[in-house]
């Protein structure tokens, strides 16, 4: 284990510091609040000669991911960052990156998709991209986004995986929030990520290859089957990289961050920073004798179905907190709820009452009393045996 150097950093700077230490070959990016500081500070490192990265300022996020795809296809280690409509603008390129199996690392600072225009935090951006074949990691704190971003490089580049990774954090809340973040020594990060040996390079004229070629009705399906096989088998790889990083940093890197789940009757499943708010409530309720639990997945894609089912199958009632609406889904539920419900049903688990709470859209503040009300609802539902409304809203004026 190596000692980390702790300093006050906002989440954006936690990422730009990680990028500095990783020192990727190429970074192509376009600014968008609340990601701006990530690339702004990194570009200062480039200007000061602190990194060797070829920095490509592009005209749009679509161009950013296109440049990243080109650089990665040439065999470079590539990173970038975006948010909200920027992620939406590069949507087609996300599929191209994952389809050609390029290990690009994208830092997403979660922000609501327009319209109407809102620059504050919700998960509609990365959730909208959940089918794009990218691995998705969600960080609760600045420390976690720093740790996740470094691990993302090793996860993406793993020879059995070669899948791009989105490392997400909550815009403004974590992105602009200053916390105590421990940075590993530069050399430790360099050693951990190592050198990237691309399997193929478009610049290798001795071994010419073609990427993203015409793939007719007779083979496209087989290529996609191969791609889904890699994603389906990615959890053990993520666990192995996480274990190695945990040993190096002395900080646990669980797939599911759990509090009080061993004997929880009432559990909340939530991603990102609101897990912090929730945990204070869970702890307080536990102290009062309620068997409350909190489950925070750090990995959302691939969905850790088996682990989540095992953690919740004995609960009396479970609330899923979704910071995005999957419009038109059953009841207008959120993506996390949809995946949890499917996982439970597919594992033959029908015991727990399952309720979805949409919260925090457009940066709406979610306060401890609201979380308490969720646990109260769960308790009431379990007592009466009646679920009531499947999809509810936290912090909405009704």
């Amino acid at each position: 284990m190596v000692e980390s150097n702790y300093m006050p950093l906002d989440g954006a700077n936690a990422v730009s510091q990680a990028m500095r230490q990783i020192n990727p070959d190429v970074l192509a990016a376009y600014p968008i609040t609340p990601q701006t500081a990530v690339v702004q500070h990194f570009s200062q490192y480039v200007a000061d000669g602190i990194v060797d990265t070829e920095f490509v300022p592009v005209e749009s996020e679509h161009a950013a991911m296109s440049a990243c795809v080109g650089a990665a296809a040439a065999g470079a280690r590539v990173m970038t960052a975006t948010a909200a409509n920027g992620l939406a603008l590069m949507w087609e390129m996300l599929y191209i990156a994952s389809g050609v199996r390029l290990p690009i690392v994208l830092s997403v600072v979660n922000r609501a998709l327009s319209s109407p225009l809102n620059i504050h935090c919700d998960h509609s951006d990365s959730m909208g991209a959940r089918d794009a074949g990218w691995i998705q990691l969600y960080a609760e704190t600045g420390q976690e986004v720093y740790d996740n971003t470094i691990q993302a490089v090793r996860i993406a580049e793993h020879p059995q995986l070669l899948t791009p990774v989105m490392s997400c954090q909550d815009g403004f809340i974590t992105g602009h929030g200053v916390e105590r973040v421990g940075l590993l020594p530069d050399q430790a990060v360099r050693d951990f990520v190592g050198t990237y040996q691309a399997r193929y390079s478009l610049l290798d004229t001795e071994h010419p290859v073609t990427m993203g070629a015409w793939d007719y009705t007779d083979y496209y399906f087989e290529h996609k089957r191969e791609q889904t096989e890699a994603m389906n088998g990615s959890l053990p790889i993520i666990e192995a990289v996480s274990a190695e990083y945990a040993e190096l940093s002395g900080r646990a890197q669980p797939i599911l961050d759990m509090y009080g789940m061993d004997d929880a009757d009432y559990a909340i499943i939530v991603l990102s920073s609101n897990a912090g708010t929730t945990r204070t409530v869970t702890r307080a309720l536990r102290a009062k004798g309620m068997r409350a639990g909190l489950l925070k997945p750090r990995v959302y894609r691939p969905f850790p179905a088996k682990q989540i089912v095992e953690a919740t199958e004995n609960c009396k009632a479970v609330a899923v907190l979704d910071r995005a609406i999957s419009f038109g889904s059953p009841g207008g539920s959120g993506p996390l709820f949809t995946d949890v419900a499917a996982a439970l049903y597919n594992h033959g688990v029908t015991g727990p009452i399952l309720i979805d709470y949409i919260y925090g859209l457009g940066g709406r503040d979610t306060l401890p009393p609201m979380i308490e009300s969720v646990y109260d609802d769960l308790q009431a539902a379990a007592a009466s045996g009646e679920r009531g409304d499947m999809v509810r809203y936290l912090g909405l004026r009704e």
Partner: protein
Amino acid sequence: MTQYETPRLDRPWTEVNPGGVVLEPGNSVTYITGTWRTMRPVRDTEQCTQCLICWIMCPDAAIAIVDGQVTGFDHDHCKGCGICAQQCPVKVKKPHSFTGEMGKVIQMLPESQFED
């Protein structure tokens, strides 16, 4: 013409290259598109001036060239689009050796008229 190894159409998903990365350079030549043709270009070899415009304009690189002279068409890859016939700048002085018509040095005939 060249013998190509016909691409296999029966590989299961376990035998494809991740990302569909193609390792053989220039292997699109093994994909036979000549069967798509419904019209075939024919060239009056005597009256052809060897200006090479057909070779420049062909979108499939299907005009065969040896030592800077057009020698014929690559029927494995000619799709019969007719661009060569349309772009040919040379009008025949006597009836076309294939079609018997006046008009250009390259003209298009229905593919059904050919045995091969």
